[in-house]
């Protein structure tokens, strides 16, 4: 039986120092430290601690030091998220979420944290300077940074089977998960002209499968760091997706993928073979074609468009839901909503992509760009179109083009604001977040699979959290409420 699809999204953000020299590591560090510092000033119980793997990040009351300790800047937040500097980008890793809707919520909460970080950093910088953050995946010069997804899977399923069966989905889901891009950054297949692509990321993928994440990127990533009991669980690490701003796009990215993985775990493919002859070529061909009609060569010699292939996956998923229910998606109602929206978006794309401009980023962006093009009579190579592409992803509310669009929202502003500080209730993020809320000054470090307390006595006390489905509110809320101190908590835990 498929294990519950606990999931999460890690987003590397683009970063720009406006009015200053570019130093992305320093800028990224400043964003994280400014945010954490603001929290400290809001009355958190921080102490002056050493930097490094400190769970609370590098925080000092008062002004920022001129030379910021930049390596290993890392903060774990009270909502269970991890906010840190990785490869010269600020990175936000959502807490473990129980379902696709919760993933949307915490993804949006992560954007709020970045917005607040920008505001906090601006207050510390001289007039006219600012650090600006972009939720996208490339700089149009051949440099790409990722938006990764993580899915909990049953370790018993052979990895080769996962890779084989999920590849067609990864190649084709960009018809609704693509964030759109003006032009291309790599040589196109056959040297063809591509004025607009579905995906920001697709053209950076050069291998079918592999361990790399920064070059020769593989469609299926073999990283095996479960951060959980490795006998029972696998964490599938997915690097092939775009950063999404449209909530329905994020919802389907996580939800449809969770369903496909459940199909794989529970042998739900019913003998249907969707193997592509050349996935690396196909992922680009799909991205190049906004008409969604390019036939992709299948391993069995037939051909199929990306839309048709997604319809096949959807049909299999619907049958799976009818046969087995959708408990593994974390919530039956959320699972049903994934199916309904998946069907509705595929149908919309099939009749006229403009139908899904409120749900799908590449469509919303294209509509904007074409409208602008018409108004000013511009060619595709006009810099203003590239500027629109980039500014779509600017996270500043006053500059973001996405923020000006009327798109469909799945989560309320109020819920998003709560999710900035409150952890999910149905995964181990709950225990992590609550411990940080209550006893941050006693937490020596908080990791995905453990939390280490410093009670002031030797040795440090480590609480393992090897099951993403334990440490939930149901398991620990009463225990936490009854514990008057971390020492008390630890005593009760060992009882």
């Amino acid at each position, binding site marked *: 039986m498929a294990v519950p699809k606990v999931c999460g999204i890690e987003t*590397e953000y*683009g970063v720009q120092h406006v009015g200053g020299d570019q130093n992305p590591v320093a800028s990224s560090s400043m964003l994280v430290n400014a945010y954490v510092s603001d929290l400290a000033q809001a009355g958190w119980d921080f102490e002056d601690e050493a930097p490094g793997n400190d769970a609370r990040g590098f925080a000092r009351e008062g002004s920022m030091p001129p030379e910021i300790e930049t390596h290993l800047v890392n903060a774990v937040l009270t909502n269970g998220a991890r906010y840190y500097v990785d490869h010269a980008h600020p990175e936000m890793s959502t807490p473990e979420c129980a379902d696709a809707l919760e993933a949307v919520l915490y993804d949006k909460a992560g954007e709020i944290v970045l917005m607040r970080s920008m505001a906090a950093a601006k207050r510390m910088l001289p007039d006219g300077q600012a650090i600006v953050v972009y939720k996208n995946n490339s700089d149009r010069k051949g440099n790409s940074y990722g938006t990764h997804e993580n899915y909990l899977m049953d370790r018993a399923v052979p990895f080769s089977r996962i890779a084989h069966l999920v590849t067609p989905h990864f190649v084709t889901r960009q018809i609704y998960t693509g964030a759109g891009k003006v032009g291309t950054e790599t040589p196109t297949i056959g040297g063809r002209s591509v004025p607009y692509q579905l995906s920001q990321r697709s053209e950076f993928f050069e291998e079918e499968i592999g361990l790399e994440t*920064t070059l020769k990127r593989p469609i299926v990533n073999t990283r095996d760091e479960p951060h959980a009991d490795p006998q029972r669980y696998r964490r599938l690490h997915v690097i092939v997706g775009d950063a999404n701003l449209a909530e329905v796009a994020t919802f389907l990215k996580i939800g449809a993928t969770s369903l496909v993985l459940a199909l794989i775990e529970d042998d739900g493919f019913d003998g249907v073979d969707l193997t592509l002859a050349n996935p690396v070529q196909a992922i680009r061909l799909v991205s190049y074609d906004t008409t969604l009609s390019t036939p992709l060569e299948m391993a069995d010699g037939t051909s199929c468009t990306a839309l048709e292939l997604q319809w096949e996956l959807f049909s299999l998923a619907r049958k799976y839901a009818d046969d087995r229910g959708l408990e593994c998606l974390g919530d039956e109602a959320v699972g049903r909503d994934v199916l309904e929206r998946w069907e509705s978006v595929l149908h919309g794309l099939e009749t006229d992509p403009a139908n899904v401009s409120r749900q799908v980023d590449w469509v919303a962006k*294209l*509509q904007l760009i074409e409208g602008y093009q018409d*108004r000013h009579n511009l060619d595709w190579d006009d810099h203003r179109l590239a500027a629109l592409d980039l500014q779509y992803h600017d996270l500043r509310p006053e500059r973001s083009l996405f923020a000006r669009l009327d798109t469909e929202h799945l989560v309320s502003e109020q819920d998003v604001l709560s999710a900035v500080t409150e952890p999910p209730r149905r995964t181990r993020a709950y225990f992590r977040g609550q411990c940080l809320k209550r006893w941050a000054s006693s937490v020596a470090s908080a990791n995905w699979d453990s939390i280490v307390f410093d009670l002031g006595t030797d040795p440090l006390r480590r609480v393992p959290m090897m099951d993403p489905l334990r440490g939930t509110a149901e398991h620990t809320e009463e225990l936490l409420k009854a514990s008057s101190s971390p020492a008390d908590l630890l005593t009760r835990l060992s009882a």
Partner: protein
Amino acid sequence: MAEREQKRRPAPSTRQEEAPEEAPQASEAGERLKSELDDLLDEIDEVLEENAEEFVRNYVQKGGE
């Protein structure tokens, strides 16, 4: 493989295709959409980075994961 009707695809565009006969409601909706898009484009003209070429050229990132 399930048979799906191959629909003739529109040109790579989200532009509204002109229908030969438009019902009154459809053209009203079309007008409203066009007017909303116009308002949006007005706004964008105001907030779009002034020197587009420089803005796009200066946006350089380190490769990430």
